[in-house]
């Protein structure tokens, strides 16, 4: 059965989130244009966009819920499912394929004991693949949250992961 969500205090955005959204509002013409930015702002604090967050944004910006749903499922950087504290994405585009990204992928899956798209049991890491990260001359590439690692060698993957453990 679907959970019915009643309007309560949780359905509101926090003061900090509102402050951040208000700060970027001047760049755009209307509320619909801010919606992607708002989703990104809320995701920065809540790690992912739950139905409750979606309702809260919809209520604050006064735009339709289905419109937000449509956007949030379209863009790859907006997570509609819970993710771990750190999101690891490896590049699987064809230049990294030439440079053998699969070695990196295998080491990551082996050390984290998960497959691509899954989250570790302790909710620490989520492993995802991403399209070209625009550093093809320095592949294979790994991105953890907002940090980019270039020329990754399988030997050093564990060292990189230790920074986030």
């Amino acid at each position, binding site marked *: 059965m679907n959970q019915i969500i009643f309007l309560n205090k949780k359905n509101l955005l926090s003061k900090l989130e509102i402050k951040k959204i208000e700060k970027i509002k001047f*760049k*755009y*013409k*209307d509320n*619909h*244009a*801010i*919606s*992607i*930015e708002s*989703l*990104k702002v809320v995701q920065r604090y809540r790690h992912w966009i739950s139905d409750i967050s979606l309702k809260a944004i919809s209520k604050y910006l006064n735009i339709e819920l289905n419109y937000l749903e*449509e*956007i949030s499922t*379209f*863009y*790859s*950087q*907006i997570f509609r499912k819970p993710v771990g504290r750190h999101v690891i994405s490896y590049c*699987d*585009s*064809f*230049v990294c*394929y*030439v*440079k053998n990204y699969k070695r990196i992928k295998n080491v990551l899956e082996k050390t984290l004991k998960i497959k691509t798209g899954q989250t570790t049991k302790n909710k620490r890491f989520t492993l995802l693949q*991403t*399209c*070209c*990260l*625009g*550093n*093809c*001359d*320095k*592949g294979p590439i790994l*991105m953890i949250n*907002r*940090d*980019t690692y270039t020329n990754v060698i399988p030997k050093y993957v564990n060292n990189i992961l230790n920074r986030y453990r």
Partner: protein
Amino acid sequence: MIIYEETHPLTWRLKKKKKPIFLKKYLKYNGYNGAKKAITKFSPNEIIEIIKKSGLRGRGGAGFPTGIKWSLIKKKKSYLICNADEMEPGTYKDRFLLENLPHQLIEGIIIASYALQSKCAYIFLRGEYIIAEKNINYAINELLDKKMLGKNIFNSNFSLNIYLHTGAGRYICGEETALINSLEGKRANPRFKPPFPSSSGLWGEPTCVNNVETLSNIPSIIKNGFHWYKNISLSIDSGTKMMGFSGKVNNPGVWELPLGITARELLEDYAHGICNGYSIKAWLPGGAGTNFLLDKHLDLPMDFNSIQKAGSRLGTGLAVIIDNKINMVNLLLNIENFFSRESCGWCTPCRDGLPWIVKILKCLKKKQGKINDINTLKNICNMLQPGKTFCAHAPGALAPLKSAIKYFKNEFEKGIIYK
């Protein structure tokens, strides 16, 4: 390699140290002289004429003449969008310019906005380019502090605001009309043309979308004149271009070189040749959406026309080497997988056709292909030609497949079971 302003209009300020150049250093190296000259000495129409005469072609991939694109915008009060959503696999030139030379781009935007009489300009940046985002924000704030941006730039009547917008991650956002939709906060689906963005774009107003490299070229054209810009190049197409080589080469990277330099020179002098133990099987001249070329094509000059005559596109000008140890079917499966994953799903040929190709290639990889699989692939390639889909995503996605079947048919045949 010695770098001078006369030969390297884009990167001469970087010299050997590849550190980002901010306002103080940029002004020291004649920064914003082009913008000052444009706003104080020329009228908007004169600038469009200069760019037209310079022969600058869009550096985003399609190569549409920039001056003509600008002259199509008749109405005043338009929008200018800088397309910095670089997601084509194998392309990394814009990142280099965005991270190291943010002020050069902003100067280009100021001149372009003046020529188009824009009320405000947007930079649509990829969400993953964290350092670029930081550097551009810093550069814009530096200008705002010095009052070189905003109202009455350089004591003229011209006012401009530049906003940075970061994308939320979709390959299709790089397409002109999809980018406009994304900026409006919608799903990044391409729009039907006509109306073209030059008459109805962002929020229904005339809009011009230019690539980062195109806009970065403009300050030096205005400063030094179009004759000078035309003479830098070694071919009919004028100017320089960011070119590079990646894959299994000794020194992968990106360099600013005159258009018309041969691919072999680029590979051997700059990328220092192919790694030991490998030989060249094929190469892609500019990103994943271009056709494969062979060893014999390496002596072609890297410019729009020559590469087109050989059956490919210059695209973004960043070439990739495919070495002899790579299986073409597996490589194409990777490329088509990417394109089918990134299809926006707006038109049926692209939404259904690309996964179909992935399915066939998967069978060929497992050596479970059927006898007429290659013909089916060819048929789908014909069905998804330009004009038969909504945008250029599917035709671009099929360019490597089409040429791979042409040159390496035997590798595809290996995956078929003959009963």
